[in-house]
């Protein structure tokens, strides 16, 4: 294969992976605090539409991304109120958030369907980005790609090196013990949920601002769910979240290139690849129940009532 093709595949893999990476990092922190928010898909859609609408209206992509994060955080706030304050079932509320997000984003985005928007500019570091293959890959991406990588490092350091991160992990491990020691379990979880929402919002906005860039209904096409799968794939370790997101991004891109190359397989079957790959990866990871038990936050999904 010509190295331009390789570069193209790798470049677009980075593009395709970044939305899932943002969302999965957010969900990782949420799950580490013991909350399972299945509403990632809905929050990403809300982020995607708000990012697009704000950017289209103001011409500022930075504002678009920021407000997408705020919108994602607000949407997750609904989930937080229901599950943390009103003690509702986390699985059901996560599903509700996804359904709500699909509807709300479609409603807000209706007037913007089919309108074009210029993609986020790529940062070119002169000289470096001209190196073949790795040049554009490492030095020629847009700002959000670099931010996503910085966020991965930041999340890793936060969870493993800071006292606040230790407290988040402790709350996820045993909310009763954390409560007995006087930690505000609900407040900590609420922040973790909002962080997850904000990150999903940014991930969604990356889809509508950089990846496609346009708005269409349901444009996440399951990426929120794949982000959830990334967290399971990572067995709750931040470095592996990055690996997982890039792996799933690669499947998405590889099948698109296969379609372009006229592989003698119907395109519908090629399009199944990311979904089937997700199932396959889940099966491989989940077989090792011991590892899941070692790393999964022990309170994940359990309702906490402090009295």
């Amino acid at each position, binding site marked *: 294969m010509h190295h331009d093709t390789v570069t193209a595949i790798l470049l677009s893999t980075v593009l395709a992976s970044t939305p899932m990476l943002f969302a999965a990092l957010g969900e990782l922190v949420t799950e580490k605090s013991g909350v399972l928010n299945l509403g990632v898909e809905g929050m990403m859609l809300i982020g995607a539409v708000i990012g697009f609408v704000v950017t289209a209206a103001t011409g500022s992509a930075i504002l678009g991304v920021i407000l997408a994060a705020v919108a994602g955080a607000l949407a997750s706030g609904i989930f937080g109120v229901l599950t943390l304050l009103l003690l509702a079932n986390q699985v059901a509320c996560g599903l509700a958030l996804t359904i709500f997000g699909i509807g709300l984003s479609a409603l807000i985005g209706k007037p913007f369907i089919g309108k074009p928007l210029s993609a986020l500019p790529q940062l070119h570091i002169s000289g470096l980005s001209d190196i073949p293959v790795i040049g554009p890959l490492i030095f020629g991406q847009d700002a959000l790609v670099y931010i996503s990588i910085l966020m991965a490092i930041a999340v890793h350091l936060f969870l493993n090196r800071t006292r606040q991160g230790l407290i988040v992990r402790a709350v996820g491990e*045993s909310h009763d013990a954390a409560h007995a020691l006087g930690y505000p379990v609900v407040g900590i979880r609420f922040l973790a949920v909002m962080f997850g929402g904000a990150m999903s919002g940014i991930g969604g906005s990356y889809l509508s601002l950089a990846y496609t860039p346009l708005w269409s209904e349901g444009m996440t096409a399951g990426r929120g769910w794949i982000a959830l799968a990334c967290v399971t794939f990572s067995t709750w370790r931040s470095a592996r979240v990055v690996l997982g997101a890039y792996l799933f991004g690669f499947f998405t891109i590889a099948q698109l290139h296969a379609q372009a190359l006229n592989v003698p397989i119907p395109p519908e079957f090629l399009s199944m690849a990311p979904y089937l790959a997700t199932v396959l990866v889940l099966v491989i990871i989940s077989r090792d129940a011991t590892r899941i038990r070692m790393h999964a936050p022990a309170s994940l999904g359990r309702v906490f009532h402090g009295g």
Partner: protein
Amino acid sequence: MANAPSGNTPRLALRGITKQFPGCLANDSVDLTLAPGEVHALLGENGAGKSTLVKIIYGVQHADAGTIEWEGQPVHIGNPAQARRLGVGMVFQHFSLFESLTVAENIALGLDNPGPMKDLTKRIVDVSQRYGLALEPTRHVHTLSVGERQRVEIVRCLLGEPRLLIMDEPTSVLTPQEVERLFETLRRLSSEGKTILYISHKLEEIRVLCDNATVLRGGKVVGKCDPKMTSARAMAEMMIGTELSSPQRLGPAVEGAPMLELVRLSTTSIDPFATNVKAANLTVRAGEIVGIAGVAGNGQAELLAALSGEDILPDPNMVKIEGKPVGHVGPRERRMMGMSFVPEERLGRGTVPEMTLADNALLSGYMVGEFAMLSSGMVRSDRAQDYAAKVIKTFNVAARGHHSLARSLSGGNLQKFIIGREMMFKPRLLVVAQPTWGVDAGAAASIHQAIIDMARAGTAVLVVSQDLDELFELCDRMAVIYHGRLSDTQEAKGTSVEAIGLLMGGVFGQQDEDTNAAS
């Protein structure tokens, strides 16, 4: 140890503490005064209000009325962090530790200003050496024994330099030898002027350790005494409010046919936090009560799952009921062969908390042909209701009826219901885990009596318990489980608490020699 406090200002003075929960007055105008250097016992049955009172002192709960004075100053303790800043430390009954975190991380979480990890690690080592509480800061908590976990809790408290240390039932999970070591630590602390509030219902321990005792019953202070001058029996009667009755035994065990045999039973749980049972051998005969002692977490849960059929074994011959291999079959088949099973977890395993007692009768009673609660795949709810009503009546379960939810019953009544439900099937083999753990004395006595009566009527009974007093009261023979290994059984009459205690601490070889020397 100084009985008299140094100076006149008490470390802590509670006046008129009252706390109301829905349907229960947990603390009713409680007064309590603690002096510096004093070891003070807080005595009472389960539900007497001890835990609520200490949670109020530690800021976990808030009193509805009453005042708290700390070293002469009136204070409001809003949360545990405030309590810790005042100088209150607490070691919880159910440890508030995080399994997947390290010892040092756990300790850091319990301190308000832990400082850098490196310094903290050094401080942990210092304190643990000073008080004889050996600990490795980098180990993960899930790899520690129960005794070691308690050390983590104590070291965590001590690093906060408390002037009042609250210990909630600290010895319930320790071997007698570990208890002795703990007491040495506590005495050293008290000689340094620290006040210790020691909560327990184990009277002999209190007589050995404590300077003063306050007795709670039904949320009220019903008495104060000097435990060294008061008999255990007198204190027990203060706690319970009536005289104690011991269970009646009708003659010795009849040597019957083997009902349950374990033959080199080994479990293979993949749970990294599990303690697998290793090559356990045991025989329980009809008409006898055999006990298994041991500190929690030594493989009891895994052994019980293998006995009940919840865990299917690789070799059917590892468990035999009446000589027939059953290791490969589940709970349903084992029940049909005459086994009943009372699990340790009452809510969530022994019963479904959100279901009625009638439904909970069906839970384990569905396969008992005699009561025919099922007909062609459908539930005969009338029969399940009758059965539940009969259990309630026969075993004096305080419940409004068969429609009460399991979770609405008190611990003791729920246990009476479960034991009654399992006994009414007229099993030929009964396996009971922790029959009276957390149950009030009245219910405990009636449960013990029922178990003894059942055995004397010819049922083989296996009791797994952490409570040595209970095992000595019930059992004809006893074995100890330690790190998944089961010792040989000893005649209960031929052994002592100390001998069993050594086994519980893992001194199997020495015990064998002792037995040989004795025989």
